[in-house]
């Protein structure tokens, strides 16, 4: 009798204890997620409120900002045409992805299909290391090695979209390779074995079976790479030349959204039209991030089918 009462009370205590413990965990993790969501909402709000001032207070036509060709915010009258920057950002990041995509695909095939052991042991750490080198150092190497090389070999001053894209392509290689490797590794082995069983060579299998089935995942990697390249600032600024024009060649000075921001943000006074316009550029960058994320999700949705 005494024993049973003890047991029930014991059970009640542990029950309560369990209950409290469970709720501590639940509340803690929920708070963490809330913090995460608050941060991003605050960020979107602040950048948007700043970026939109250009249109409301300085009465710049949004269409002018997006399609105008002339950027001279200190001129008389000030002009806020950011198309050269948008063009610069897109062309450098696309070109960078174009260079990095075949490289990353080959690296992934090497690691998964050709020499899995060697690849996992040496190539993967090497690629991860590329991700760890700070962007400032990349920019400096770009300025010391790539720009002089282009200057000697091609007409022009060496700076420009080509130099920017080349620096960026090395920087986004790790992201793209990681995604491509994951995609290839996730491929059901039956698919490949079936192809081999039919007498196909390795290349035929890769080209006809592996590539088509993993294409959406590979594209995800490409888009993520472009997104990363789009947001990179310091390294690009050092090698691109920073002239606010759409360049006539790949080796002519150009400018991106990020480099326009870093170049002038510190020199302008908060609340001035120029400063507000820079925030509008930041807003465009942020909106582009959303676009990239949506493209990635759409691609991921397709690869599941």
């Amino acid at each position, binding site marked *: 009798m005494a024993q049973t009462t003890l047991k029930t009370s014991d059970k009640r205590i542990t029950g309560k204890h369990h209950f409290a413990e469970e709720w501590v965990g639940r509340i803690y993790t929920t708070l963490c997620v809330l913090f995460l969501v608050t941060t991003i909402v605050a960020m979107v709000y602040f950048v948007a409120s700043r970026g939109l001032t250009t249109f409301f207070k300085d009465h710049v036509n949004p269409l002018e900002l997006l399609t105008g060709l002339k950027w001279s915010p200190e001129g008389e009258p000030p002009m806020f045409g950011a198309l050269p920057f948008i063009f610069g950002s897109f062309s450098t990041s696309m070109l960078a992805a174009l260079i990095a995509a075949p490289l990353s695909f080959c690296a992934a095939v090497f690691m998964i299909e050709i020499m899995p052991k060697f690849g996992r042991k040496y190539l993967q750490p090497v690629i*991860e290391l590329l991700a760890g080198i700070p962007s400032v150092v990349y920019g400096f190497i770009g300025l010391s090695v790539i720009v002089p090389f282009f200057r000697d070999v091609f007409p022009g001053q060496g700076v420009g979209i080509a130099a920017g894209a080349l620096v960026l392509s090395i920087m986004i290689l790790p992201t793209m390779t990681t995604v491509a490797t994951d995609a290839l590794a996730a491929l059901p082995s039956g698919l490949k074995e079936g192809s081999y069983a039919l007498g196909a060579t390795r290349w035929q299998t890769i080209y006809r079976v592996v590539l088509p089935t993993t294409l959406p995942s590979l594209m995800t990697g490409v888009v993520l790479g472009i997104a990363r390249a789009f947001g990179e600032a310091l390294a690009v600024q050092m090698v691109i030349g920073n002239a606010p024009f759409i360049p006539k060649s790949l080796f002519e000075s150009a400018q991106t959204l990020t480099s326009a921001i870093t170049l002038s943000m510190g020199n302008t006074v908060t609340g001035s039209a120029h400063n507000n316009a820079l925030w509008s550029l930041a807003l465009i960058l942020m909106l582009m991030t959303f676009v990239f994320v949506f493209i990635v999700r759409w691609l991921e949705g397709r690869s599941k089918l």
Partner: protein
Amino acid sequence: MRAKTVDKIATGVIIGVAAFIVLLLAGLLGFILVRGLGHLSFDFLTSPPDSFREGGGIGPQLFNSLFLLVLTMIITIPLGIGAGIYMSEYAKANKLTDFIRLVVEVLSSFPSIVVGLFGLLMLVNYFGLGFSLMAGALALTVFNLPLMVRITEQGLKSVPREQKEAALALGLTKWKTISSIMLPIALPIILSGTILAAGRVFGEAAALLFTAGMSSPRLDFSEWNPLNPVSPLNPFRPAETLAVHIWKINSEGLAPDAPEIAAGASAVLVITVLLFNLLARWLGRFMHRKFTATK
């Protein structure tokens, strides 16, 4: 026959590309190290920088980088793991969860310069933190949080379902199951991921230009009270990190040996990141062996 030739050529090309990537990295590392190593000395690593005379070091910058890393991690790890647990264990499959997942993805691909500017507006000016380590750490948290969330999710997913179900069947609460059964198993993955993320913090400059500031005040390394303004441990003092220092002396350095200092500092930075990577691999393997009893 022709198909076989094509196969051989393709294989050759792929191996060639892989070799090219390795060579590229070797070249990059070689370039940085060859130019920088000559300048490294104990004195260089410990003495304060000099704005215009020869012989300045990177002592405070190195300390700032490490301290900022610690601060960032103290903030990021509990938050990131918490959010990661929520996403992988508690979140229901509905629109809200989808939205949060979207938010995390957006946050992770945010341009660092935008994060820096946000830090300048919110943390430095609005919350009045000023250019400080704290503002820098919070800005870096914004970067690292999505990474931590993803790593934690991955780690928890790798836990065998049987182990989780066994714990639940024994009557443990969900939280207890997560904290005492699943987290320890997921720890190797979380840990090595965290260290890799830490390496990235170490090299970040764009976001810190606007938050942690570009100068280091006078530091008194015998003063360890975190509230004293000259104490190196004070989280509310401005701090220039190594990556920012490289940026600064590349752009406005007046010292006659500025290029050498930049090269030396770059080498230190790269070596540190290298060490982080090696540590992550070693620790991951070590813990994996310890927890799973595989040879």
